[in-house]
């Protein structure tokens, strides 16, 4: 059976004395350099540090700015006040703007999902004539710069009298969002085993019931992930909204931009900072709610999968 080996050093000359009971770290394969060793690592950590310094610096600067009474030549503002926020709220009707932003976002999400998910289902499950053309058609708006189709689209909007309306803002935001939902949901549906649907039908379920009782529950995580992405994109979308919106239909980003570029050098910097902070807080709240359902890499990895072709 098992022969107990003699470990008392009866080996060839020059071999180190055996230490069979010494315990060693289990994290690295022999010969592998540790995470802290090479020069590339230092470069990477230095780069990451610089990046985060900028990021945090930017964020904090804006927050401090928005809370300072006046701040020009010193490290920190001389005094602090919350006046800028109330100014912003009053002068710019923040409630109205936030309301507009949320309405646009929600409507865009709902329509995109209602229209996009069925289309994604077909693309995932069926082959039909001209499928490649249709796929390309849906892929294009996501790949192009928004300006390229945005300007002609805005021209049409103005021509039919929809310029500067809420409807126009919603419509233009749908152009990238519907394909986005389709591109995100198609691989998601593909990875659901199609034989599940066959099994349901053999148990007597009609097509409609297969959809509502079997497919929809499985699709919810994907739909949530896609919705969050659409939400972030729409709330943050500048180019398209800017082209067709007006004072009554500006979203938050557009309002801030207008404030920054208003004739005569723009509004007071602190005012803008307070609006920017309000914007960030809104985004944060949205994201915190979102991250309870999806993990961060999914947010981008989904896009990667859908753009694989």
């Amino acid at each position: 059976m098992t022969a107990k080996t003699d470990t008392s050093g009866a080996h060839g000359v020059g071999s180190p004395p055996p230490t069979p009971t010494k315990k060693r770290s289990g994290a690295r394969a022999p010969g592998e350099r540790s995470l802290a060793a090479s020069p590339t690592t230092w470069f990477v950590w230095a780069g990451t540090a610089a990046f985060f310094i900028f990021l945090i610096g930017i964020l904090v600067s804006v927050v401090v700015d928005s809370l300072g009474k006046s701040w020009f030549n010193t490290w920190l503002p001389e005094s602090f006040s919350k006046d800028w926020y109330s100014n912003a709220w009053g002068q710019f009707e923040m409630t109205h703007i936030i309301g507009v932003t949320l309405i646009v976002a929600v409507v865009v999400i709902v329509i995109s999902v209602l229209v996009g998910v069925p289309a994604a289902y077909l693309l995932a499950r069926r082959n039909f004539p001209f499928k490649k053309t249709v796929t390309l058609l849906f892929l294009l708006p996501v790949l192009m710069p928004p300006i390229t189709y945005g300007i002609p689209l805005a021209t049409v909007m103005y021509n039919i009298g929809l310029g500067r309306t809420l409807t126009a803002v919603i419509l233009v935001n749908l152009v990238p969002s519907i394909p986005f939902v389709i591109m995100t949901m198609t691989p998601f549906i593909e990875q659901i085993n199609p034989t599940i649907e066959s099994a349901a039908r053999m148990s007597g379920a009609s097509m409609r019931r297969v959809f509502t009782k079997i497919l929809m529950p499985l699709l919810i995580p994907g739909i949530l992930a896609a919705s969050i992405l659409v939400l972030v994109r729409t709330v943050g979308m500048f180019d398209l909204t800017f082209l067709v919106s007006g004072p009554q239909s500006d979203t938050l980003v557009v309002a801030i931009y207008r404030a920054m570029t208003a004739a005569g050098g723009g509004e007071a910097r602190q005012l803008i900072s307070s609006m920017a902070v309000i914007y960030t807080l809104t985004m944060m709240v949205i994201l915190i709610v979102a991250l309870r359902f999806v993990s961060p890499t999914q947010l981008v990895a989904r896009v990667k999968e859908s753009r694989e072709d």
Partner: protein
Amino acid sequence: MTSPALGRSTATRSTASMRHRLAERGIDTSLLMLVPALIFALALFVYPFTYGIGLTLQPSAATQEKWGGGAFSNYVAFFKDSFVSDSVWLTMRLALPAALFNVLASIPMAFKLRHRFRGKKFLTTLLVLPITLGTVLTAQGLLIFAGRQGWLNRFLMQIGVIDQPLALVNNYLGVMFSLVISGFPFAFLLISSYLSGIDPSIEAAAKTMGADWKQRFRRIILPLLAPGLATTFILTFVLAFSVFPSARLVGDAMGSTRVMALMAYRAFGEQIDYPMASTIAIMMGVIELVVITAVLLWRSFLYKGSTGGKG
């Protein structure tokens, strides 16, 4: 009567109903599910786009007068008016380096961070942050933080590295910063997921065959990662090329960061010259397409295959 089979027999023709024959080819009522999406795509994308192209061929009277060329007057103006045509080069000058940097810097980062470690999820969440902050907020923040009076310059002067504040905003650098801040996390996350898509046992196999990390990287990982890198570059480039608000807010809108998007908007919103605006917009798309095609061609000369696992 039946004729004798002549060598190879032909398949029997389907005698099923029309409905079934159509279904074989994928046409049945469920195709209706595609219709709403198609309607939106056609009405809001295809139609305006073709209308826009048509519009470019209907130059305004002023343009025709100034540049000649009849129906193609807009295009003549585009290429001849250096104020406008220079914007192509200026946009490229921003977008190409930004995209290259974002992709190349992501590679070592993705490598170092691909194994599990404590705080990985936290780090990844932090990296997603800039994507959500958006360009406008980043612009405002850069103006304050990296401005002449901002903390960055103060700090550098304090520790004696410089005696005059650096001009980091309202110029090319400002827009560059903005592009990197918003583009790098995106590129990093994409490349990370491509990297994790490579089967780890392939690397283990290379190890057992005597390859050290340099050889593994050059001969195994890089070729398998290359298609993903190309895709990431294309996506990052598209984002960078479309830069619009940052060029105005932290750049030099009438000077060194006079990007195409700004020119298009100027024609649209300020000059109310819809045909010219559409022309610039279309040209943006065309130039982008050229770059994308070039990258895709390069990519298709690389290996064609999956990224790992059994066939």
